[in-house]
């Protein structure tokens, strides 16, 4: 076993192949076979993820060349600590969403036909992005991800969802187009697209600058950074709950992941102090605007969706905190930033699942519908409540640990304005989270209007929320995993 882990063939391609196979199979197979296929596929992907983890623990960072073609002709997959973190996160969250969807879709029989193929496709696309080592591959991943995500939003067939998915589609297409233009510029100038090779040769030319600017713009649109965020809340709020969880938890992070790879790995010298501050400022604006808008929402899922806009803003603080700030501050920000991504992924996925359960149970989507829920829906609320603790960044939770690291980094690098952003952002999130909590304590005149959601629905939300909390106590291992991928080696 041990020798197989160190010397056997890498399992990386299977992380893409398996979900693709699942997608194709479930598209052709009838409705009755769907659950069987889904169960088998999820089981196999989880197994593959586990083996990839074990392989990485044995071998460390490694590449896999598809069809044994060498760079620059061939395509390489790359596994490092960061990619591994996201793979684990994706496998965990997506399989819980699958579990949730398996039960939830009984409410939406119409959506069943295309849900599974699209979900599997989405999973494959995410894994492509985490593992890609070159810019074109990333383009392919982004396109696949965009299309499958748009499809998933449109699934319900409701008017609102269709309108939202159309906006989402425009944003996704525009973003990919900008990215592709940038890629073309770089290829025309440098003749290669492999990130690690480009890192050695990337020059500070006009075309290089233009390419970076275009790609960044495309990615900011795709990750719904302020002020390009307006497509996100309706799309995430109108989708089916397991889809919302997937989109907010994972899909929205793909563009950020690429953005970091792009700037901090490929062209670290091109990131000037002011550019980094600008990215941070966009993040801060998102924190405030998203938080403020979340406070104003009356619909539960819209509130959660605006909270995603705010929370994605924190991620952008990674850039100013790692640019020219010294070794220690950079390390802290790097670990804090990715820990924030991890805990937000878990907590937000949990929160969307729980919000979906609550809406299902209440039979209406607005906040006052929660009156009396404290007595009749304790489990659905528990999932929501615990996820909220992590989102507010209160201890003990992953969100708190992440904020602590980011705060430390800001303090160490003397950028006190980010401290203000982090602290007031947390206060703002407390306002909108408690706005939901407080509704649950109001007693209702008409208590028996709730229908209990199935146990598996509540349990899947609760499981993710508990993971987000556990991240606050067991953060040492993820922190180590992240630290191995710090750009510029262990520096």
């Amino acid at each position, binding site marked *: 076993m041990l020798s197989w882990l160190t010397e056997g063939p890498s399992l990386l391609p299977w992380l893409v192949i398996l979900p693709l196979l699942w997608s194709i199979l479930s598209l052709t197979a009838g409705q009755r076979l769907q659950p069987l296929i889904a169960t088998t596929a999820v089981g196999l992907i989880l197994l593959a993820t586990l083996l990839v983890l074990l392989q990485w623990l044995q071998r460390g960072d490694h590449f896999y060349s598809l069809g044994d073609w060498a760079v620059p002709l061939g395509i390489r997959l790359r596994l490092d600590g960061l990619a591994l973190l996201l793979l684990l996160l994706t496998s965990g969250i997506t399989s819980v969403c699958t579990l949730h969807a398996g039960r939830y879709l009984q409410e939406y029989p119409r959506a069943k036909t295309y849900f599974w193929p699209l979900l599997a496709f989405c999973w494959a696309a995410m894994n492509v992005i985490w593992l890609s080592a070159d810019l074109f591959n990333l383009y392919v991943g982004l396109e696949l991800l965009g299309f499958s995500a748009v499809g998933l939003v449109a699934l319900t067939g409701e008017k609102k969802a269709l309108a939202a998915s159309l906006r989402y589609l425009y944003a996704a297409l525009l973003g990919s187009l900008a990215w592709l233009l940038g890629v073309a510029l770089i290829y025309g100038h440098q003749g290669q697209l492999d990130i690690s090779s480009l890192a050695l040769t990337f020059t500070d030319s006009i075309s290089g600058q233009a390419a970076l600017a275009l790609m960044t713009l495309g990615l900011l649109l795709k990750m719904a950074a302020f002020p390009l965020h307006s497509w996100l809340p309706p799309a995430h709020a109108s989708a089916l709950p397991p889809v919302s969880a997937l989109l907010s938890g994972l899909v929205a992070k793909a563009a950020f992941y690429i953005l970091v790879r792009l700037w901090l790995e490929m062209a670290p010298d091109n990131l000037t102090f002011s550019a980094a501050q600008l990215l941070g400022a966009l993040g801060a604006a998102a924190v405030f605007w998203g938080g403020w808008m979340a406070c104003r929402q009356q619909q539960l899922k819209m509130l959660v969706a605006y909270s995603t806009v705010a929370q994605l803003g924190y991620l952008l603080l990674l850039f100013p905190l790692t640019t020219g700030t010294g070794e220690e501050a950079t390390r802290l920000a790097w670990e804090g930033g990715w820990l924030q991504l991890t805990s937000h992924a878990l907590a937000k996925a949990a929160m969307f699942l729980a919000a979906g359960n609550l809406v299902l149970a209440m039979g209406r989507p607005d906040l006052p519908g929660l009156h009396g829920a404290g007595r009749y829906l304790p489990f659905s609320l528990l999932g929501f409540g615990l996820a909220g603790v992590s989102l507010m960044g209160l201890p003990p939770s992953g969100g708190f640990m992440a904020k*602590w690291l980011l705060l430390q980094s800001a*303090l160490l690098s003397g950028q006190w304005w980010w401290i203000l952003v982090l602290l007031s952002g947390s206060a703002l999130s407390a306002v909108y989270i408690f706005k939901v909590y407080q509704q649950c304590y109001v007693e209702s005149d008409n208590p028996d209007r709730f229908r209990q959601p199935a146990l598996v629905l509540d349990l899947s939300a609760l499981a993710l929320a508990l993971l987000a909390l556990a991240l606050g106590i067991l953060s040492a291992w993820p922190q180590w995993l992240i630290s191995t991928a710090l750009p510029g080696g262990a520096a």
Partner: protein
Amino acid sequence: MMDLHFWLPVLVLFTSLGAAAIIFWLDENNSRMRSSINLAAAGIKILLVIWILVGVSQGEVYETRFTLLTGIDFVLRADALGVMFAGLSSLLWLFTTLYAIGYLEGTPNRRRFFGFFSLCVASTLGIAFAGNLFTFLIFYELLTLSTYPLVVHKGTDKALRAGRLYLIYTLGGGVVLLAGVLWMHSLAGDLSFAATGQLDALLPEQASTLKWIFLLLIGGLAVKAAMVPLHGWLPEAMVAPAPVSALLHAVAVVKAGAFGIVRVVYDVYGITLSYQLGLLLPLGIAAAITILYGSLRALAQQDIKRRLAFSTVSQVSYIALGISLFGPAGTIGGLVHLLHQGLMKVTLFFCAGNYAETLGIHKIQQLNGAGRRMPGTSLAFTIGALGMIGLPPIAGFISKWYLATGALHADMDWVLLVLILSSLMNAGYFLPLLYRIWFCPQQGEWPQERVLGRWDTSLWLLIPPLVTASLSLLAGLLAASDFSPLAWVQLVTTREYLP
């Protein structure tokens, strides 16, 4: 054996965490099972704390430690000071649980109530045993989260408003505290409460930074300790059910703030350094202002619970006042008051709850003749009130005696004046109540009388205040014995001053 030393503090926490988990899991209507688990957990916790108490007095060290993040450890450590607070919390938890079982009989949402109640106690014990600032912060915030559902328990508009105010204050205080802890951490690393003189190396260059951090830390803690002008949440939170008020006021929340201040002064800065930096005098003045202002406001209240609330504002600051007197006597006075005030205040709130539940009495004017109708409750109330005034031989006298001695030793004679003025006002707002209870004839019908058993009220409601009242009497009578709160506080003080 080593293992037990590692696990014991966690075990204490887990008795209430586990109880909370089981209670949330149980069915709402299964109240017998819920009560058994509650009481069993409370009992086990007291036994464990006694075990630790005996160990600590013999110099044993109980410490749970693991790494959370690089450079940050999660530390639970039972030292003499922590055990003192843990002992108070677990003892009063038992009585408050008994009381709450009787008080909430037949009302909805009891599962939620007792679940969060247990969580609240777990957080309080975490605060007691926290071994560094970071761990303290974790449990301090957890306490905010677990008390919010108790404050808004009734779900009325008024309760929700009080809850909002409570959150604004406590979460705001939490942010300030976080800023202080963060700054301290980047300056001096992971500070253990066990070590001494850790900050001395930073002097004299960082003296002003240390003063700013002190301001942030104390500012964050003063919110929960309800020091003026950060006390606004406390009287409003009175809308909560009586056992919650008892718990909030006597142990969990206000004491968590006061205890935090003790930790910061003695175990983060060290009493000598705090003195050198000139931090004690401002703290003392803030405490004195709170004491006088709280008493003054209490005089003006006509609602019993609100009068008690302002009395808490005033009384809790005796603790901070005692600490700010540089010298062992002041320390003893402040710390012992942490215990004594807990016992006496919990008694008063239990009694106020009894009057409200049994006779529907909320206002002071309605108390006329209550002593004849509810002699047991009224006796307990009298002991608590006289103790608060500082009448010997009740516990409150011991606190004030040591505070006064401390003030004289520290050459801060003005503190004496504060103590005298405050005691006069204490008498001014408690004695009229006692007069009405015992000497005024009943006027007409009680506002809302319920007959609960053949005694004053149901035994669930009657026994807890009688026991805590007797304990406050005993704590004063037997102060000189080896088993009194005073004896333990003297041990703590010896250890703080002689590292």
